[in-house]
């Protein structure tokens, strides 16, 4: 179809050119600057040549763009879902085989089966459900507080240069500081209460969110701002209609990292700060198993903590990020 268009133009072209030349010699007074004749010329132009141009452009457009390839679900499954699953299965099998052959002391190397048993015991005694719900609630709530605090701070620092020069390096520094370091201070300030846990989570997650937003705003191409200005946007609408949407990839990356830091900080706080009015979370469960020298229980809890972290990433952040990047054509790997 596109080939037909180009071929069609090639054969018609000389005739069209000749006709146009003839017209020109016959009406030398057709001065395009005088408006009356201009519209006349425009009308003639739009009937004959516009259709020609339209089909020509349609052909070229078709040639120069790929048809959107649909994502192949099976391909996604075999290339990105299957490999880690196979790896984990092989790992567990090797572990079990090792236990069978070497027969190490079960209190030093428990078998996969005893770890699974520990998980199901914890489930039956309701300890697992309580711990997961408590930790998840704190993690999510703490993370949301960090978002509410970090977002306006990040925007402020991104848009006010002097402020960023003064505070930016300190925020980056805070990102390096392990948030466990805040636990003793938090205990002294807030005692063994939920406030201690939330404070540590906040200190862990906020710097990532702020930094993500700042780097997102920094990476906004200057020509987009310039176009916004040319289109007549004032500072407020430039920020909401151009800068913020353009900074979204950096912001989402910051949120993702912020969640990871929230979860880590929460576990650290729960392991160290137990007792008082602090409820029973996964960190507390981990610490309890250690006191009982129950290695199977410890490993079981670690697996649960890991699984929850991965699950939140997979069901929440990964689709969010993928959708956003795909819409902008920033996703690598051919999927449109």
């Amino acid at each position, binding site marked *: 179809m596109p080939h037909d268009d180009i071929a069609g133009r090639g054969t018609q072209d000389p005739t069209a050119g000749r006709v146009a030349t003839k017209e020109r010699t016959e009406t030398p007074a057709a001065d395009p600057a005088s408006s009356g004749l201009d519209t006349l010329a425009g009308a003639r132009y739009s009937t004959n040549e*516009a259709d020609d141009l339209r089909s*020509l452009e349609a052909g070229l*457009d078709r040639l120069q763009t790929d048809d959107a390839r649909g994502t192949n679900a099976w391909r996604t499954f075999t290339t990105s879902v299957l490999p880690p699953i196979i790896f984990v299965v092989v790992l567990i099998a090797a572990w079990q085989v090792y236990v069978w052959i070497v027969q190490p002391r079960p209190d030093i190397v428990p078998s996969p089966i005893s770890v699974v048993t520990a998980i199901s015991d914890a489930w039956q005694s309701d300890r697992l459900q309580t711990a997961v719900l408590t930790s998840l609630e704190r993690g999510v709530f703490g993370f949301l507080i960090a978002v509410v605090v970090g977002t306006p701070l990040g925007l402020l620092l991104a848009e006010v240069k002097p402020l960023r020069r003064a505070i930016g390096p300190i925020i980056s520094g805070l990102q390096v500081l392990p948030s466990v370091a805040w636990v003793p201070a938090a205990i002294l300030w807030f005692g063994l209460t939920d406030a201690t846990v939330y404070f540590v989570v906040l200190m862990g997650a906020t710097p990532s969110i702020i930094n993500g937003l700042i780097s997102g705003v920094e990476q906004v191409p200057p020509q987009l701002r310039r176009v916004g200005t040319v289109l007549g946007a004032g500072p407020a609408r430039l920020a909401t209609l151009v800068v913020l949407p353009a900074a979204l990839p950096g912001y989402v990356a910051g949120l993702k990292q912020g969640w990871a830091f929230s979860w880590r900080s929460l576990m650290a706080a729960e392991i160290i700060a137990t007792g008082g009015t602090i409820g029973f979370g996964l960190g507390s469960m981990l610490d309890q198993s250690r006191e009982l020298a129950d290695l199977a229980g410890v490993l079981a809890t670690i697996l649960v903590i890991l699984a929850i972290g991965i699950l939140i990433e997979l069901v929440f952040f990964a689709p969010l990020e993928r959708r956003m990047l795909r819409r902008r054509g920033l996703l690598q790997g051919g999927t*449109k």
Partner: protein
Amino acid sequence: MSGQAAIRIEQLGKRFGAGPLVLDDVNLSIESGEFVCLLGASGCGKSTLLNLIAGLDRPTTGAIDVPAEGAAVMFQESALMPWLTARQNVELALRLRGVARTARRAEALELLDTVNLADAAEKRPHELSGGMRQRVALARALAQDRPVLLMDEPFAALDAITRDLLHEELERVWRRTGRTIVFVTHNVREAARLGQRVVLLSSRPGRVAGEWRIAETSGRRIESPEVAALSIEITEQLRKEIRRNAA
């Protein structure tokens, strides 16, 4: 030629900070509805002049008169918002112009149809070819509904076939809408193909070094003999200007 001046530039000078003079004593009067090509070597100050006309920068000396409604600008890179579809990109311009929400969609589709892109309205910039992106950018510039359209090497990054088509497209849009167009390019043939008037800028400092008026502009193609003849003439002058810097 008749008609009143849409843009009047008088004794314009521009330098950046304490740097050398980029533009010196530029005088130019552009009529309403005129298609002017600003031609010059790279770095001679074409973009600087265009930004001054657009009001993105201030002149050091001299004065520029532009219509009160201002000018629409199109750049070499399409600079479309990557998170918006073609239609939404045009709608953004309409929104910033103050068009009511209900009227935006229809008007955006109409503008996209003007540049033969009605079918691609729901595509995002990364799904469009370079030429299509520039046409969306053109539709967006038209959406601003300003009497003056400033274009800074808008087709420089396109392949020759696409550029050729966009020349025809732009010429058609110009005839249909009656906009005043200032088209910046470093491509002599492009200037000779498109302009009613070609203004040559010299380098260091930028001054008006020559002007050509083309009486008959309809039916031109990049390969037309009259375009070739004019290109040779302009290139001669351009080379003379460049050679002067050797001494």
